[in-house]
């Protein structure tokens, strides 16, 4: 492993766009590096039960044994010994906006959290560093029996429920980065929606990284009991730094009979972050799982939200967009694992490469023996904005069952001259026209977002488009 981090070019106008930086002020900061003592220390600091400490230590062993993935993006520049695995930004969770420290508030102001709160009047669980520091939950939700906590609090307050589901969808041995997360996880969201309860307002959490060389390893667990519905929104931005940061989350979701869960992410880490995330859902009889996944920032993203279709009638949906600018590699996609008969899945991927960026769609459709009469459809569209950019498509389709219909389609194209000419002949500048075309291209994604997020995404695309010479 290289000890010298690769220099990163993040673009000089990044700071004005959405990069910002607030001086560090931490209550507790673990030492750099990774060993059993640090893992024990994290567990001790959090006052965790013994089974969790053991789980962390066992995961660390697995992490050490697993080789680095040799496919996908180049990860050799990650130096696991040069990362802070745990920081705690303030000593207790704040219950209201006013209680938050001023510098944290300043950061959130830039992100627009107060607006989001005003608009949604719902639970906002915003994460600053590794610990959820700001958390509010509508009384209405509590009355319905909905649990919406940061994952650490959930372990303390609902130990039995937590233990029943934690690590069951993504075991530590699933891959090297899920093992790492299992060893050092901190923060994230825990949601439990009881039988038959529909949560009409999207639940949101902002995740933030704000320390040099700090890994963020949040752990999210969502349980939708029978017939329930929840929409969870996760949005990320990160301030700018010059050495590589690692973000490696694990998201586990259980969608029981007749329930529906939608998980929306707009991920916009700064362009020096390695974003290596394992996201997986189990969907049971007639349940629906929808991943809406937008990847704009980071240096390297490797993320393939997946749905295991466990019982007849289960449905999985992945809607993914990726935008890769200068120096970025977005290796994203989706996985659909058909285990039971009469299950259906769709994956729609839209990717945009610009200024030498590279987007890769990587997907897997697996239909196990016995998962008869299943249907799956994958569509990937890629837009290349200039001749230096690159787009790849790696779809793996394995069918082991009878009467399965599987389709895959992909196209790669550039912004067409006809479209540009049409817009420019109406007095629109070239760069505006290109932005409009790109926004049109990702419209199937944008229209699935709540209005505020759609606006934010359009703004981000606009910034990305302006950010370099076309």
């Amino acid at each position, binding site marked *: 492993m290289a000890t010298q981090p690769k220099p990163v070019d993040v673009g000089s106008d990044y700071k004005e766009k959405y990069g910002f930086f607030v001086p560090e002020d931490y209550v507790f900061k673990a030492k750099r590096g990774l060993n059993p003592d640090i893992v024990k220390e994290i567990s001790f600091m959090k006052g965790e039960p013994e089974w969790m400490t053991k789980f962390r230590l066992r995961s660390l062993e697995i992490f050490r044994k697993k080789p680095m993935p040799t496919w996908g993006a180049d990860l050799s520049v990650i130096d696991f010994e040069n990362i802070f695995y745990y920081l705690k930004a303030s000593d207790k969770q704040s219950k209201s906006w006013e209680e938050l420290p001023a510098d944290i508030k300043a950061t959130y102001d830039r992100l627009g959290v107060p607006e989001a709160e005003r608009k949604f009047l719902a639970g906002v669980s915003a994460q600053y560093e590794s610990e959820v520091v700001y958390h509010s939950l509508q009384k209405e939700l509590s009355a319905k029996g909905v649990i919406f906590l940061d994952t650490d609090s959930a372990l303390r307050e609902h130990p039995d429920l937590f233990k029943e589901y934690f690590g069951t969808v993504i075991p530590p041995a699933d891959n090297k980065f899920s093992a790492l997360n299992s060893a050092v996880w901190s923060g994230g969201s825990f949601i439990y929606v009881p039988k038959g309860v529909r949560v009409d307002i999207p639940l949101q959490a902002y995740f933030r990284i704000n320390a040099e060389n700090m890994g963020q390893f949040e752990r999210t667990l969502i349980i939708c009991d029978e017939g329930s519905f929840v929409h969870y929104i996760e949005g990320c931005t990160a301030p700018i730094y010059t050495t590589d940061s690692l973000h490696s989350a694990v998201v586990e979701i259980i969608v029981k009979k007749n329930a529906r869960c939608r998980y929306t992410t707009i991920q916009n880490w700064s362009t020096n972050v390695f974003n290596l995330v394992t996201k997986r859902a189990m969907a049971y009889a007639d349940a629906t799982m929808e991943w809406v996944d937008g990847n704009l920032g980071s240096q390297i993203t490797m993320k393939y939200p997946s749905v295991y279709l466990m019982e007849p009638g289960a449905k999985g949906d992945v809607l993914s967009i990726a935008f890769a600018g200068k120096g970025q590699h977005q290796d994203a996609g989706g996985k659909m694992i058909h285990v039971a008969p009469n299950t259906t899945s769709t994956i729609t991927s839209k990717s945009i490469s610009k200024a030498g960026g590279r987007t890769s769609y990587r997907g897997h459709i697996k239909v196990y023996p016995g998962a008869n009469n299943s249907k799956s459809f994958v569509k990937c569209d890629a837009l290349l*904005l200039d001749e230096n950019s*690159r787009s790849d498509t790696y*779809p793996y389709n394995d069918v082991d069952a009878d009467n399965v219909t599987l389709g895959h389609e*992909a196209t790669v194209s550039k912004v067409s001259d006809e479209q540009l000419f049409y817009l420019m002949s109406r007095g629109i500048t070239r760069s505006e026209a290109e932005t409009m075309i790109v926004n049109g291209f990702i419209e199937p994604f944008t229209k699935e977002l709540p209005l505020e997020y759609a606006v934010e995404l359009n703004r981000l695309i606009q910034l990305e488009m302006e950010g370099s010479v076309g």
Partner: protein
Amino acid sequence: MTFTAETLERTELRGEPDWLRQRRRSALEAYERLPIPSRTDEEWRRTDIAGLDPSQFAKFEHANGAVADERELPKGVIVEPLSAAVMNHSALIEPLLFSMVRPDRDRFAALHAAFFTGGNFVYVPDGVNIDEPILGQHFSHESGTSVLPHTLIVAGKGARFNYLDEYIADGDDEAAYRSGSAEIIVGEGAEVGYVAIQTWHFADQRARLAKDATLKLFNITLGARFSKTRVEASLMGPGATAELKGIYFASGDQFFDFHTLQDHQVGNTTSDLLFKGALQDVARTVYAGLIRIEKGAARSDAYQANRNLVLSAKAKATSIPMLEIDNNDVRCTHGATVGPVDPNHLFYLRSRGIPEMTAKRMIVQGFFGQVLDRIPFEQARTMIENELESRLG
């Protein structure tokens, strides 16, 4: 006898030119050096070669390039067994032989390059057109043998002809190791039709296209319990067009593995790939194809499709169509489908009094028709239609 240096010293190879003997020796070194591909190699992940040990079949069988064509050919045209051609046309062959099918690619390719015998050399000079197809047949009669023919096809500027490679094994005897490869060099403005009908284990078919060259390549895979076929075309000059088509029909416990590559090295090139397969019983197929557009290859147009018709509950098809695009000014589309016979089609035919079995057969024939109709000469088309018919049963 084994695949060793001593074997290379056999009398029938001893007379070969020095450059070829040297090439065989270095291929043997590669064979000894390279490991057996394991399931961790991406290209071999879905391929079980545990039961395949070529060294069991180290007795060679001479399938020495029976060119089944006695008629007079235009002046300058060479159609000879490769073994004879390396003696007669050494200077012509030396720079081209194994320039595309690389011996060091894997253990099996190395073995083939070290020990190949048989196969043909076809050379059609500049501007020569041949209307009747040239036929090459490669036979394997004995069991327990290795048959490793290699064919080199060279089309000069503006040459135009069709070639049929037929790999024939007596019965479906599996106690043999058979690998038949072809290298096709299509010169500027030339037009080559190449059809390979194979029932063998390994096939590497690789073509190189110069400016304005056209290749129509058809791979028909029907046989061997195990087969691994690679069909690759490099588009090296603007205006080059490669049409790569495949048909496969797998039944019983056959396992077919296909790799295709559309390698757009320069711009203004076109490739069109369509591989259609039908599977029945407990057969399995894997298709993995890649369109690669190099950085400077602007205004390339590439199409790639893999369609699988799964006729039984236990048959299994895997499809991996991949793209790597390094230029924005291109048109690339690909698609893959895996599915059973459309019940509506079946219903339509049955409602007209056609029994289910016949209806299914008609649907399969129709499914292959799209590729069969494109085969540039009647003889190959008829032969393949008959083969398919007998297998559909």
